[in-house]
């Protein structure tokens, strides 16, 4: 059974963000509490690519649509790097749990 450490997911997600944002001007470093849309300034297409790259990294389809639905249900429109990492870590662990013999 693969154990996905949250810290690993955090550094992976930050690395993916760094690459996606490339040479865009950014106001600050990417931190766990950085808001993806308002602070890091991602557009829809960037968020779509972020999701795709995370799935590529872990070779898993992840329920991002559900993540967005949950955001809306909580009347939030933005999310932090940390919240995304929590979601990915949970989803990956759930996958692994489902696949354990």
């Amino acid at each position, binding site marked *: 059974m693969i154990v996905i450490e949250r810290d690993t997911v955090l550094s992976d997600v930050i690395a993916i963000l760094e690459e996606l944002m490339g040479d865009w001007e950014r106001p600050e470093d990417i931190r766990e509490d950085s808001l993806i849309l308002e602070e890091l300034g991602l*557009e*829809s*297409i960037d968020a*779509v*690519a972020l999701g*795709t790259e995370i799935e590529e990294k872990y070779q898993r389809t992840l329920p991002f649509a559900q993540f967005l639905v949950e955001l809306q249900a909580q009347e939030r*429109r933005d999310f932090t790097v940390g919240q995304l990492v929590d979601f990915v870590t949970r989803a990956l662990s759930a996958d692994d749990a489902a696949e354990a013999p």
Partner: protein
Amino acid sequence: MRKVLAQGVNLHYQQHGLGSDVILVHGVFSNLSYWLLSVLPKLVNRHRVTIYDLRGHGFSDVTPTGYTSGEMAEDLRGLMEGLGIERAHVVGHSFGGAIALHYAVRYPGRVRSLVIADSAVPALRPYSSIANWAGYSELQKLVEPYGVELPEDPDRWDLAEVLPQLSKLPTFVGLRQGLPRQDRRMRRLVANTTCLDDLQAVDDMTEDRIRAVTAPTLALYSDRSPFIGVCRYLEEHLPYCRSFIESEGDHFFPAIAPEALANLMLEYFASIESQRTW
């Protein structure tokens, strides 16, 4: 992230679903998320849907030139060849529709059907009747609170002057809805490429060649569209064209009313494929 090389340009794309091929082409300043977050999920049970970022947009290569409908029709040809798609229903929103139409002009055998959604077409500018744009005063009222001033005569719009003002508007669709606009890609496109000029190029997509398009065509326009005259022209002059006027939403109705659009497209594609007259 998947990319295919077309005409030396890396085009970012995604493909979803199973079934006959549908290609969705976004408009200028947009990207593939326009479709991904709206109609695409509703099409994938019946079609294999390909969406991509036009050159200069999203995650595709930004080239200094090549933004005419003709050049981007060649990009589309390269994309389809690269992905092994021989023939497809081709859907274009806004300038994406001009690209789709240009593709049908040049490669009729590769187009199963066309959907032209609220598109301006360079050669048909005299017919767009922008001066009679029914939705213009609504638009002026919408943007005024944000300090955006639009010229009284919409036919005299200079995109290079109007577009920078649009940055004052919040985002209306997508994940950033309600948040300040992220316009870095638009600014880059305007500053570093010939895109704005290229939008006007007629090239070989002349009126005569447009009238000769035999692909079944659905012209889908908002009743508040600045380009409604183009819709009427297409319906009148293309041999196999019918129109549908959308009364919910405006130029951006694909994102505003995706369910209705998706159902219409599914029905349209099904009728083409069963060769029912409609």
